[in-house]
C-alpha cells in the first residue's frame, strides 16, 4: 500500500533516535577535545628522528645521514646535509651524522615510506596529529632539533615496533662487539706474534671502544654544527 515504505522509514529513524540514547553501537560520536578515542598503535602522522638519549638528543641521533629517505620521499619534503666528520652510532661504528635534517611538514603527506626504507631504524612515524601553525612557510619546516625524539618516547607510542627495533639493534650491537672483540683478539694475536719478533708496537683496537655509550663519546652538538645552522643560542 502507498505509504508503507514511508512508515517503515519513519520506524527506522525512530529506532535510531531511541538507540542513540542507550546504544553505543549507534552513538559513535566522541566529544573531541574532552574525550579522545584511543589511537591505534600503528597510527602514523609525521616523521620523527629517534635519538638514544633525551638529555643529549643531537649527540645520539640514530640517523647516519645516508639520505635514502631523502631519495625515496615521494613529495621530496626531506632535506639532509651530511656531516664532514664521523661519530659512533648506536652500534658503535663511526658514522656520519646529519648536520641538517629538515622536514617540511606542510608538504609531508605522512605516507611512512621514509620510516619504511630507513635501514638504521632512525626515522619513525610520530602520532601527533594536532599540528597547527600561524605561518605555513617557516613554522611547519621542522629541523632536526624539533624532529628528534628520545627512544623512550618512541617506545611510548609504538611499543611493539620499538621493542622489535631495540632487539634488532641490540643484536647488531652484540654482533659488532663480538666482531670488534674478534678483531681485537686477532690484532692482539697478530701483535703478540709481531711482539715475539719485534716487541715494540702495542696492540690497538681497530675501532672506537664498542662498549662505550654513544653519548659519552659524541662531541657536544653545538660545537660541531656549522655556525650558520645552529639554532640553539
Amino acid at each position, binding site marked *: 500500500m502507498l505509504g508503507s515504505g*514511508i512508515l517503515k522509514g*519513519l520506524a527506522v529513524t525512530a529506532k535510531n533516535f531511541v538507540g542513540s540514547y542507550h546504544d553505543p553501537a549507534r552513538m559513535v560520536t566522541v566529544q573531541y577535545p574532552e574525550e579522545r578515542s584511543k589511537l591505534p598503535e600503528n597510527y602514523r602522522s609525521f616523521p620523527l628522528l629517534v635519538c638514544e638519549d633525551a638529555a643529549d638528543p643531537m649527540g645520539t641521533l640514530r640517523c647516519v645521514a645516508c639520505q635514502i629517505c631523502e631519495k625515496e620521499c615521494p613529495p621530496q619534503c626531506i632535506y639532509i646535509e651530511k656531516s664532514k666528520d664521523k661519530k659512533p652510532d648506536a652500534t658503535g661504528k663511526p658514522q656520519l651524522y646529519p648536520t641538517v635534517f629538515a622536514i617540511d611538514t606542510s608538504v609531508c603527506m605522512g605516507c611512512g615510506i621514509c620510516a619504511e626504507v630507513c635501514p638504521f631504524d632512525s626515522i619513525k612515524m610520530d602520532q601527533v596529529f594536532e599540528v597547527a601553525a600561524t605561518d605555513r612557510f617557516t613554522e611547519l619546516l621542522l629541523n632536526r632539533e624539533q624532529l628528534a625524539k628520545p627512544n623512550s618516547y618512541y617506545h611510548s607510542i609504538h611499543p611493539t615496533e620499538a621493542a622489535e627495533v631495540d632487539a634488532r639493534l641490540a643484536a647488531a650491537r652484540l654482533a659488532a662487539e663480538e666482531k670488534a672483540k674478534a678483531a681485537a683478539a686477532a690484532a692482539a694475536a697478530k701483535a703478540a706474534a709481531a711482539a715475539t719478533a719485534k716487541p715494540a708496537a702495542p696492540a690497538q683496537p681497530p675501532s672506537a671502544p664498542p662498549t662505550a655509550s654513544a653519548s659519552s663519546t659524541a662531541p657536544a652538538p653545538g660545537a660541531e654544527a656549522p655556525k650558520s645552522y645552529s639554532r640553539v643560542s
Partner: protein
Amino acid sequence: MSVTAEAGTFLERAPLVLRDAVVQWFPAPLQWLAHHLITIVAILAVFGVFFAFTTVAERKLLGRLQNRLGPNRAGLPWIKGSKLFGLTQPFADAVKALTKEDIVPAAADKLLHFLAPVLVVAFSLMTFAVLPFGRNLIPVELDAALLYFFAAGSATELAIFMAGWASRNKYSLLAAMRALAQVISYELPLMLSVVPVVLVVGSLSTSEIALAQGGWTFGFLPHWHVFTPWGFFGFLLFLVAALAESNRAPFDLPEAESELIAGHLTEYSGFKYALFFMAEYFGLTALSGLGVTLFLGGWQAPFAFLEFIPSYAWFMLKLIGMIGFFIWARGTLLRLRIDQLTRLAWQFMVPLALINLGNAAFWALTSGWSGPLQFVRWGVSIALVVGPFILLGRGLNGGRGPRTYRYATS
C-alpha cells in the same frame, strides 16, 4: 474577541487578566490600541522565543535521529565552560547572522531583493492572528478566519518568488518557478482537506471549530476530528499539504539543497537569510497551529481530569508534537521531483480530498444514527476513505516497486 475572562483556574485566566490590567493603565481612548499592541507584542515574544527553540530542537532532534549529538556547546559567554545543553545556540546564531556581511548581487533588483525577506516574515506572522491559542485566547476573532489564514499563508510563496526573481541567479530563478508551481498545486488540496471540518462544524471561525471539539464519547474518547474516519484522513491530507505549503522536506523543492544549492536563498546572506529562516519556521508553526485547531481539538484537553492544565498549555503541547513530527519526517524522507510533486497534488490529493468531503457530508448527515447503525456509519466512512486511497495509490505508483535480481556465478 471576548473581553471578559470566564471563570476558570487562575492560570487559565492569567494571560487575559494580565492584559486587561495593563490596558487599564492607559487612558480610555487609547485602550483599544494598547489592547492590540499588547497582543502583538505577546505573539512576537512568545513565538519569537518559540522559533528560537524550535531551531535548536530541530537540530538536536535531527542529530539524535542521525546518531549525532546535535548542538550542545553554546553556553553563556560570560561563564567559562558553561554549556547549558546548547540551548543558547539560537542566540549565538542570531548574533552571527546580524554581524555577517550583507551581500547583494550587483545584478540584483535591489528593492525586491530587500523587500522579499521583509514580506515573507510579515505574511507568515499575519497568520498567527486567527489562531486560538487557548480558551478565549485569540488575537483577532474573525468570522472568516480560515479564509484569512490561507490568504495570508499563500502570500509567503509570492515573497519567495520575489526573492528568487530579484536575485538574478539561475538557481534562484528555478527555485522561484518551483515555488509558484508548488503553491498553485498545494493550495487546493490544503483547502479541500479543511473544508470537511467547516462542513461538519458549520463555521469558518477557528475559535468555533476549536470549541466544537470539546466533550468526550464514553467519557474518554475526545470529540476531536482526528478521531473520525474523515477527520483522520483529512488530517493526513492536511499534513502532507502543510509540509508542501511550508516548503519542508520532502517538499523543500524551492530550497532543494542537492539540486539548486539553496534555491531562492542562494544570494541571501546575513540577517536577510535569517529572516527567511524565521519565516519558514513561523509558517510551519502557524500551519501546525491550524492543524491542531482543526483536527487535534485545538486547546481542548484530551481527558476530562486533565482540564486543570491551562488550555494554552495543551495547545502548545500539541503544537510541539506536530512540529516534532515534521522534524521527524524531515529526518527520514527524501525529496520529490517537481513533476511528481504536482502529480501527487492533482492526481492523488485533490480527488481524495473531494471524496473525503463527501465522506464528511455523509458523516454529518448520519449523525443521528445510533446502536448498530453506528457501526454501519463507521464502516461506510472508513471504506470511503481506504478504498480510493488504495486505488489511487496504485495508480500513482505506476507499477513501481521493489525488484528481484538475478545473479551470475561465473
